[in-house]
């Protein structure tokens, strides 16, 4: 297994698309975070609470999720597009081993990049908003939660890429499932509508770093629900990967 993980690490680090999407993620998070922080401090009539400062600093997170999901998609769909998947499967005929190695390497890389990006963004944002960095109850949890959320979004992309195998199709599906559908669901009327909406992908997943009022899911439960969505798609992709001709 270590051999295959090493091989996947070489693959992911040796293409420009990795560097570009990760750089885009960092720029979106940090850039938007700084802009919103400046806007907030300019309009503020008094001192800003540390937690809301951290929340404002993370304004770019939705865009970052798209960049990371796109990277997740590309990690596998680019192999299908070029036909290189056959070279990979000739080297590693145990297909689930290949997929597992991809998941491990991608998760590790995304988690580290997300954690660093979120930490820097929150620190810079809080400094701009004249708040002592990392002060305030719940801010460290918010930082860790945001990084976990970003990683899950990347994995959602990888799962969709495995299932759909086609880059544009998988990226559009990721955007639909992460941004559009959750938004539409929020418009559902009534108590039942709200409950359904709470369980939809990112609506549930975001609980890990922004605890909204009157929602039925706690932070970890919400994140668990989101991971379950990712897992269902990933398992469907894995089953097809085993069955289909390459």
């Amino acid at each position, binding site marked *: 297994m270590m*051999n*295959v993980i*090493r*091989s*996947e690490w*070489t*693959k992911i680090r*040796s*293409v*420009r*698309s990795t560097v570009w999407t990760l750089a885009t993620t960092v720029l979106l998070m940090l850039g938007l975070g700084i802009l919103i922080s400046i806007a907030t401090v300019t309009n503020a009539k008094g001192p800003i609470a540390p937690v809301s400062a951290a929340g404002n600093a993370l304004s770019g997170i939705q865009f970052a999720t798209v960049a990371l999901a796109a990277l997740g998609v590309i990690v596998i769909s*680019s*192999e299908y597009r*070029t*036909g*290189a998947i*056959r*070279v*990979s*499967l*000739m*080297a*590693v*005929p*145990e297909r689930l081993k290949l997929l597992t190695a991809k998941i491990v390497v991608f998760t590790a890389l995304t988690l580290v990049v997300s954690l660093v990006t979120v930490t820097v963004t929150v620190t810079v944002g809080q400094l701009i908003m004249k708040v002592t960095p990392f002060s305030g109850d719940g801010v460290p949890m918010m930082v860790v939660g945001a990084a976990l959320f970003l990683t899950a979004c990347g994995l959602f992309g990888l799962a969709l890429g495995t299932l759909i195998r086609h880059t544009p199709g998988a990226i559009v599906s990721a955007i639909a499932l992460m941004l559009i559908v959750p938004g539409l669901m929020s418009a559902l009327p009534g108590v039942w509508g709200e409950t359904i909406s709470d369980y939809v992908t990112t609506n549930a997943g975001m609980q890990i770093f922004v605890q909204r009022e009157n929602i039925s899911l706690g932070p970890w439960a919400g994140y668990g629900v989101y991971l379950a969505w990712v897992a269902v798609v990933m398992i469907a992709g894995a089953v097809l990967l085993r*069955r289909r*001709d*390459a």
Partner: protein
Amino acid sequence: MTAIRATNLSKRYGATVAVADLSFDVGPGQVTGFLGPNGAGKSTTMRMILGLDHPSGGTALVDGRPYGDWKHPLRKIGALLDAKAVHGGRNARNHLLAIAQSNGIPAARVEEVLELVGLASVARRRIGGFSLGMSQRLGIAAALLGDPEILLFDEPVNGLDPEGILWIRTLMRKLAAEGRTVFVSSHLMSEMAQTADHLVVIGKGTMIADTSVEEFIGRSSQAYVRVRSPRLAEVAELVKVGELHPDHLRVTGVTPLEIGTITARAGLPLEELTLVQPSLEAAYMELTKDSLEFSS
């Protein structure tokens, strides 16, 4: 040892039969040509041997085991399917390194194969910019990474310039001479005539011949002498044996010298007296003419 063994191998896509009940063995120390017109099922068969496509029936074994049962398959069998099926954004060295690492092959071997195929100087260039010839060399480098005893090449000379073709031919002969098994597909008989010792010929997914190159020629058309003359009817009468065609006489079993001697004595003028050797190409065309997927 049987390096590759196909037993009743079949592949169907819905109602279309791509490969039907193929059984053959490929042995070491020689180049085995896998011949057939385009669409005959050669690539499908190779993908089934490599565990990429699932057979609808039958089995394909690599040294006695299904491909997927080998822990480090690249150390047993190396293959080149489609040289352009690589991630163009990666450089040659990293492309090979990722493949090597997956099979526990030391990184030093990457430099070795790059040297071997003559790509050492472009090891750090993005492979998207490689010419077809360079890509083909890179694909062969990947196949050789694990120093495998079995090699499988799918149409390796397609689209190559004469220099590249010669290089691949020489390499395949060399690999076979080292005692390795070389299984190479082609739709060009002339190509196989120059490289292969043994032939597995298929058409429309079914076996046409599994034989040595000599036998393959011998089995089909024989050598004959083509005679043309302004007084062809008289020549035909004089020679006695032979098949009279509108513009020539086709004689088997008699040498051109014998025919020339008889006609010279009779004072008959000859326009042409040619010994026509059976070509592998002709033998192939004759055998596969019923199995072309799209006849023109």
